[in-house]
Structures are given as C-alpha cells and as structure tokens.
C-alpha cells in the first residue's frame, strides 16, 4: 500500500468519524438553540446511553436494535428530566450558573453510568460481525457502516422533524422567540422540555454510532468533548451545518495523523498530536470567528 492509498484510507476513516462527530455535536446545538447555553452534561449522557445500549444489546442478548431503542429512550428521558429539574429553575440566571449546574449533572450521569454497568464502565464492542466491504485501500467494517447509518440518520431525522412537522416548527418557534410563541398559544415550557428531550435522543443515537466506531470504554465521553469543536466550527445555532463541522473535524484529525511522521523539529516529535487537534481547532475558532461558519452573530448594543 503506497502513501497515497494510506492517505485515502485516512480520509475515509476521518469522514466516517466526522459523521459520528456531527451526530454527537447535534445535542449541543439543539439545546443551545432553545436555551442559549451549552449543556455540559451531554458527554455523560452519551456515555450513559451507550452503557445502557451495551447492557441491553450484549449482556441481555437482545441485539443491536433493542439496544438502540433503549439508548434513545434513556437519552430522551434523562435529557428532558435535566431540563425540568436543572435548566428550568435557572432561566434568566447568568450563563455560569447553567454551565456549573450541567457540569454537576455531568458528574451525576457519569456516576449513574458506572452504577448501571456494575461499578465501572467495561471495554466492549456493541457489534460482532465479520462482514466488511473492500475497495482498493479502503476497508469498511460492519461497525463503520452502522455508525454512518446511525450518525447520518439522526441528523436527517432531526432536520426533517424541524422542517416538516408541526411539532418541529413549534419547537423552532420557541427557540427563536419564546414570547412570540407564547402569544400564539404554544406551550413554551413543554416544547422547551421536548427540545431537550430531542437533544437527548439525538445523543442516544449518536452514542450507538460512537460505540460502534470506537467501542464502549470509560473514555467514551472524550469524543463528545471533542465534538464540541465541530459544534463551534459550524456555529452553535445551526443544525444542518453540523455535518460540515463534523466532517472538517474528523478529516483534519486524520490528516494531522497522516502528517505526524513528517513533522519533526529536532528533538520534538509530534507523535499523537492528532489527539489534541480538536482542541486546537476549538481555540482557533473561538479566537478568530466565535460564531462559527453558519452561526448567527450576536451583536451586543448598549
């Protein structure tokens, strides 16, 4: 396999991971649109959904479909409960309050995931299948294909829901202008809670995707924290743009990984720097264009 073949396979791997990143980042964006804040509990929510899916699919032996349903249900319920118990009492408080509170929820959900799994989160894969597609230097395993399906599927579902159904339009209305929505008689509280629930369900399905791609492990939530970079790059209040953000992040990571052997400055070698690439992107976006590629700029006027 030549260098070109290697590059192609890296880019394909990066694209697959990019779709997964997009799915993981979707939860942040849905919550941001409706509550104007980042839900830092999302990484642990994904971890919890993945753990529950693993228990349903592998330990209980019900198969991947049942695991997916369980993850969706858990994600929806936990996220809606978070909104009801934590985010709603904090409406109108400064952003630090919601950041700190969701960090607290992050800890709680992490603890719950460990508790559910029986003390600690196992290293395990969700899907055991020998099936694979080969095309030149590129090999796609069954897990890859399932991950792409889950990742792209959740983004498509959320976009379709927001665009085509009355419920989705109502959710968008509440996110856009809660006072106006209330004047039209929309149940703002309920719709806010449902939006959080939708973000949680998206997280649940994304959890399946990431667990298929990278296996269930105690450090699964690191992928979600990295996905924040995709969210920022796309802009925090866009939904469809997230695909671009995710793909850029995934491919960049793999490109950096491809270039690592050539990046030697004397004694310093950059092996493994692709692990930090996501955070570099985050800082860069925040310093240069904090509102992202597709986000709306908020200009404060006095």
């Amino acid at each position, binding site marked *: 396999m030549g260098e070109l073949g290697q590059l192609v396979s890296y880019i394909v791997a990066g694209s697959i991971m990019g779709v997964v990143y997009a799915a993981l980042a979707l939860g942040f964006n849905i919550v941001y649109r409706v509550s104007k*804040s*980042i839900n*830092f509990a999302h990484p642990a929510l994904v971890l919890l959904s993945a753990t529950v899916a693993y228990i349903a699919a592998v330990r209980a032996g019900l198969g991947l479909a049942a695991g997916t349903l369980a993850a969706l249900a858990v994600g929806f319920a936990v996220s809606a409960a978070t909104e009801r*118990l*934590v985010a709603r*009492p*904090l409406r109108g*408080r*400064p*952003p*630090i*309050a*919601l*950041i*700190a*509170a969701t*960090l*607290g*929820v*992050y*800890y*709680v*959900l*992490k*603890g*719950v995931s*460990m*508790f559910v799994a029986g*003390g*600690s989160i196992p290293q395990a894969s969700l899907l055991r299948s020998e099936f694979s597609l080969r095309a030149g230097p590129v090999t796609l395993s069954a897990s890859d294909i399932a991950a792409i399906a889950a990742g792209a599927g959740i983004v498509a579902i959320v976009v379709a829901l927001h665009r085509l159904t009355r419920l989705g339009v109502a959710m968008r209305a509440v996110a856009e202008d809660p006072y106006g929505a209330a004047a039209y008689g929309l149940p703002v509280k309920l719709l806010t809670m449902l939006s959080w629930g939708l973000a949680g369900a998206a997280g649940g399905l994304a959890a399946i995707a990431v667990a298929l791609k990278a296996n269930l492990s105690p450090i699964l939530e690191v992928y979600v*924290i990295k996905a*924040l*970079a995709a969210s*920022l790059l796309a802009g925090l209040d866009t939904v469809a743009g997230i695909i671009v953000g995710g793909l850029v992040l995934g491919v960049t990571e793999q490109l950096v990984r491809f270039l690592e052997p050539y990046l030697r400055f004397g004694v*310093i070698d950059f*092996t*493994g*720097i692709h*692990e*930090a690439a996501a*955070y*570099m992107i*985050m*800082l860069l976006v*925040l*310093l240069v264009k*904090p509102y992202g590629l597709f986000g709306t700029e908020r200009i*404060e006027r*006095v």
Partner: protein
Amino acid sequence: MPAGVFKETYLQQMAHLRYPIHVYSAIAALALLAALPFMAGPFIANKLAFYMVYLVAAIGLNITTGLAGQISLAHAALMGAGAYTAAWLTLHGINILAAIPAGALMAAAVGTLLSLPSFRLKGYYLAMASIAAQEILFYTYQRWVASDQYMPVNDDAKVLLGLELGEGKLLYYTTLALTLIAVWTAANIGRSSIGRAMKAVRDNDISAEIVGINVTRTKALAFAIGSFYAGLAGGLLALHLTAIDYDNFTLEQSIDFLAMVLVGGAGRIIWGSLLGLAAIMASQSMLEMVFEGNPMYKYLVLGAAIAYFVVKEPEGLIAVLRRVKEYFRLWPYSY
C-alpha cells in the same frame, strides 16, 4: 454591631478585624494552627497541610471566577504549570523556596496568555476556550513535560540552612506560612481598587467600561492573579510530593475546583473557598474511605451537590452559614 463598638474612620470600617470577637478568634485560630503538629499526629498535620495547598488553588479560582466573573476550567492545568516549573527548577539545583515563586510566575504568564480569549468572549464561549486550553496543556504534560507520567522533585533542594523543609513538622509550618501569606494577600486584593474593578466587570462590564474601568486590563489581571495562585499551589505540591504526576491536573480536577468555589460561595474569596474546600475535600475523603476508592460515588455525590447548590443556593455555603448565625442571633424569635 456589638454594644460599645463604634467606628470613627473609614479605615476602621474596612479593617479585616472589625470587632473584638474577630481579634480573639484570629488569635485563637493562629495559636491552634501553630500548636497543631504537637497536638495531633503527623498524619493529621500532613493531611491538613495538603489541604492548604488546594485551598490556595481554590482561592485563585475564586478570584478569577468569583470576583471577576471569568469562567475558567483550566485551573488544574495552570496548577500543573506551576508544579512542573518548580520541580524542573529543583532538578537543576534551585532551592525550593525560590522555585515556588518562579512556578507561580510561570503559571501567571500562561494564565495571562489564556486570558486572551476573554477579551472577546463571554460566558460559555469562555468556558469552552478554557476547556480547550486545559486539554492542550494536559496533552503537553503527557507527551513532553512528563512523558513517563512522573517528574521527580529533587529532595536535596528542599533544604534551608540544614533544615529539611519537605517532611514532618517543618513541611507543615512551611506550607502554613506560605498559605497565610497567600490568604492575607487575597483578602486585601478583594478590598483593593483592583478587586472592586473586578466586581464591577463581573456585575456589568459595559457599565464598568463607562465608569472608566479598563475592562481588558482587569480581565487580564484577574486571570494573572488567579493563575499565580494556582501556580503557587502547584509549587507547594512540588514541596509535598517526591514526584509530580500529571493525573493531578485533569479536566476533572478543574471541575472540582469550580465546584469548590461555587459550593463554598463565589465572590467570598477566603471563607467561600475555605468552606467549599472543606465540604468537597472532606466528603471525597470520606467516600474514598467508605467505598475503597471507587470514584463512582464521588461522581454521584459531588455532582448532585454542585447541581443542588447552583439551583437552590446560588450564594453557596456562605449563605447557609449566614442563615444559621442569624437563627441563633434571633433565637427564640423567628425574626
């Protein structure tokens, strides 16, 4: 105001020790702290000294976040900058007492660099920038600074005039002295013009700018001072430990620091940090003892505590304490 006490000057009104009871309790507390190694065992004294290290770090974050309102989730990484600088200097034959301030200055420099995003960003954007900074710094420690997980600290550098500063009673007294200096300085920062400027920026940055406060400079100072304290704590950590392990400086440790500040009381630099540290460190120690080091219960209890305090007690344990004091003052009446 107790009877028989009245203030004639502004200086008296703003003094740290305003009432006779403050003076008595300060003397009693200092005497107790000074005599503690002779009363309690070496284990307790060392544990207490170790807590003091984290108290210094929590005070630093309380200045950055509580006083100036700048959210930082990179505090543990800044502590690491101080610790590694101090450890590296001791390996090159510098005495630890010189290495600790050097580490603090290094951390302050890094922290000022991290404050660059704060000039443009607010709230959660700033939180994300600090998460990115924390992870990049942690990655640097993992890969380059301490690539085999530990950086040893030179024991021969912990000697002053033939006295071993790094063990036993002297370790306690060295930590105590540095902590007291740090606490006293922080208390003064809170009531100085810098501290007031920070409070103004926290409460309303636009108004602060109109009043003539240099917001950019104030934010940079808040990060610099907070990071200086983090670095000081890191240097003290180098005094305590024989090797610096990068697992001390994870994102979770940063979250724990933020939890200390918010549970204790943001903006009340000394007492808030002290209460938060006591609550969180004590509960962690207890949970570790009971559950033999499984972090699961730490996550559950600590997370629930953070969420509860932010939602129900935004002013932290300080407010709870105030209510308790008020209850006893008014007893047997309810108001």
